[in-house]
């Protein structure tokens, strides 16, 4: 296999591995830009993945599964909002509680329904999101350079991959070019300014966490009905946290967050590729080291290689009218 083809394959895998991260990072951004810390991404992703797989299995449609996933994550977002926004609870604790709850609950319900040790039954073709082949992909396949880029790299992904990449400019537009985005950013910086402008702070924050729920639901559905073919216990394996890290790394902004997600996705893809490869002078790369790379990188990057990340000013603080 020549180098070019290797790169194409690696980038192709990068797109697939970074998709759930992108959707979840955007989800985190909507919530955190409005002032609510969303550590629950991990648990919500897991809940979404389970609902999608279970419903898709019963109904036989990935789209209904996707809707179920989004419904689940919106419900979880509302729960998080109820604890943090309405009752001004500790946002970190609420997020962790949802993570622990979903880790156990998905397994419990999975065992009760399917008795396969927490897994959901494997989905057939019709119940999963299938790759979409772009028109003419076959024809241009052999054109040098551009051919493989079009037919291998760009074409042949499932719909959610494209949705994730379209979601980034869409989120940017909503955040910076609409009234909703202006108010959302304001409520995360100084809720008092929003309140005195005659806009409800609580309602605004709920709307933000609902947006967050929609996006993270898609990322959950992607894991179990697009990338995979069933739900596996704890299948998110920290992707929610990685997405959160990417969002912080991207300074709570859509495009930098996208870049961070692609970097993490690339490392993940490279880790798979590098397994068993013998590098000259180093020998065989230990699998564990490669797999740990994204996490090590997260720590290093967050520790200060990214310049000062200034979070939204009111992040983590419930709004209390001062006396």
């Amino acid at each position, binding site marked *: 296999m020549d180098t070019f083809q290797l790169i194409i394959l690696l980038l192709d895998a990068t797109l697939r591995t970074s998709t759930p991260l992108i959707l979840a990072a955007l989800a985190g951004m909507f919530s955190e830009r409005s002032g609510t810390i969303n550590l629950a991404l991990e648990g919500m992703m897991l809940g979404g993945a389970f609902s999608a797989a279970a419903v898709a299995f019963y109904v036989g449609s990935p789209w209904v599964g996707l809707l179920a996933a989004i419904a689940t994550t919106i419900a979880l977002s509302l729960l998080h909002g109820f604890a943090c926004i309405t009752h001004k609870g500790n946002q970190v604790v609420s997020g962790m509680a949802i993570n622990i709850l979903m880790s156990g609950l998905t397994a419990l319900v999975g065992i009760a329904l399917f008795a396969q040790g927490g897994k959901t039954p494997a989905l057939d073709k019709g119940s999963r999101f299938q790759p979409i082949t772009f028109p003419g992909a076959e024809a241009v396949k052999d054109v040098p350079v551009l051919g493989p880029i079009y037919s291998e790299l760009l074409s042949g992904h499932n719909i959610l991959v494209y949705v994730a990449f379209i979601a980034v400019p869409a989120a940017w537009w909503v955040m910076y070019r*609409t009234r909703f985005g202006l108010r959302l950013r304001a409520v995360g910086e*100084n809720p008092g300014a929003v*309140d005195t402008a005659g806009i409800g702070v609580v309602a605004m924050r709920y709307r933000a966490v609902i947006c967050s729920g929609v996006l993270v639901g898609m990322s959950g559905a992607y894991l179990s009905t697009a990338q995979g073919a069933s739900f596996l216990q704890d299948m998110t394996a920290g992707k929610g946290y990685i997405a959160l890290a990417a969002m912080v790394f991207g300074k709570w902004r859509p495009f930098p967050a996208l870049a961070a997600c692609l970097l993490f996705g690339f490392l993940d893809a490279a880790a798979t590729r590098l397994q068993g490869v013998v590098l000259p002078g180093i020998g065989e790369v230990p699998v564990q080291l490669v797999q740990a790379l994204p996490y090590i990188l997260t720590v290093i990057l967050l520790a200060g290689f990214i310049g000062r990340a200034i979070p939204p000013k009111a992040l983590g603080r419930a709004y209390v009218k001062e*006396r």
Partner: protein
Amino acid sequence: MHQMHGAGETGAVQPAIELRGIDKRFGAVHANKEIDLKVDKGTIHGIVGENGAGKSTLMSILYGFYQADAGTIHVDGKLCDIKGSEDAIAVGIGMVHQHFMLVETFSVLENVILGVEGGAVLREGVDKAREELKRLEREYSLNIDPDAKVGDLSVGLQQRVEILKALYRGAEILILDEPTGVLTPQEADHLFRILDTLKEQGKTVVLITHKLREIMAATDNVSVMRQGAMVAHRKTAETSPEELSELMVGRKVLLRLEKDEANPAATVLNVENLCVDNAQGVRKVKNATFNVRAGEIVGIAGVSGNGQSELLEALGGIRSASEGKVELNGQDVTPGKGVDAAELRRRGVAHVPEDRHRMAMVTAFSAKEAAILGYEDDPAYQKGVLLDWNAISAATANMMSEFDVRPDNPDLKAANFSGGNQQKLVLAREIMRDPELLLVGQPTRGVDIGAIEFIHKRIVAMRDAGKAVLLVSVELDEIMSLADRIVVMCDGAIVGEVAASEANERVLGLMMAGVDPNEAKAAEGQA
């Protein structure tokens, strides 16, 4: 007392605002007691009262931030049901809050249109808003760049953004809550000129303040509040600061502090080229050089946030010096290695920090626990390895009687004392150790007038006992009445020093804005 002014019952002109029987409780606190108030259209109406008199609560009710338990609000003679800020805005009320309600990461324009964007997509409204802003700016000479980031603007300009926000929303009535607390005297003057322009344009202004000088200078009418009740209405031209302060406090008060000439002796504190950095590595104090002698009070003046706090904290041993040195009676006590707050206390430096609740006491403690903070290892308070609570109670009772702390109950929780009494307890704790040097920051912040008088007298008594006193305050009046020498800071550096006898507000104001003292005096000479 309830002499009302303005149009009569049948008069054609309705008052801009009329409040009838407004009543509000927060739990046990009766914040507003059956308040009646009329504000005439096209006037500047002052509301004065001490901290906690209920002024801000009343205005927050008018602006829809809180709902009154009873009473009605009438705007232009019409009964209004104000349930939230949006209702207040709808009837033409705008408010400039004491703590600005601005988003610092947004531009001026974005801040102004927040809530009245004029369409779901921003671009639709932004161009129209820009035109309207330009018109408002010209009309009221506000001098603001609509594209500047609010966080980069000075406090005075940020305040004008708040005014702009209200005007953009079509406010006919503008409420300003303690607007001059963060301004230099020159900025305050500019603000009052803007308010005059607003009045000329027929707008109504309500000015909440505890500064009588501003009431006398800027308002047409004034209402006085005390302990949640409205106690008097006056025409400003027919009243005096003395009468107003008496109405505010409920008894006669001495506005001017009487003190003798200082007799400064040997230098106690000597500061040379002191530099202090904050946790982010930003230099907050730049090459400060000054001294304080025994028997004098040196005041550090400056607009809040110009390095005074960091200077005071460094001298108190809470922050380390980055450069320079500090000497106490000739001995090196540069804060940093080996010289911390505890060591300085052992050497006779008493420190009353600026922020009472954060640094001077633990409000959840009882008074006697608060009264030994920092001195809890004093042998007098020990019984073996345990604290000697009998001795501590006795010592606290002594402090309380000496400093007139009320109620004089050493077991009462510190949070349950008023601000003035908390501060008296802190001062008693520090002053009664008989220190060589007293460092005191914002001694009367959040303290009622009666207690201010007492605290000022005790600080002067320290000086007269031959001790050195360093006073940091953002209240220029306080500095001018207490200090013998005034050191002015701006942007972390010492701009200059003037004798209190030669100081006046204009010169100090210019120096606080960074103008060299000689130039400031020259400018003053021309004025």
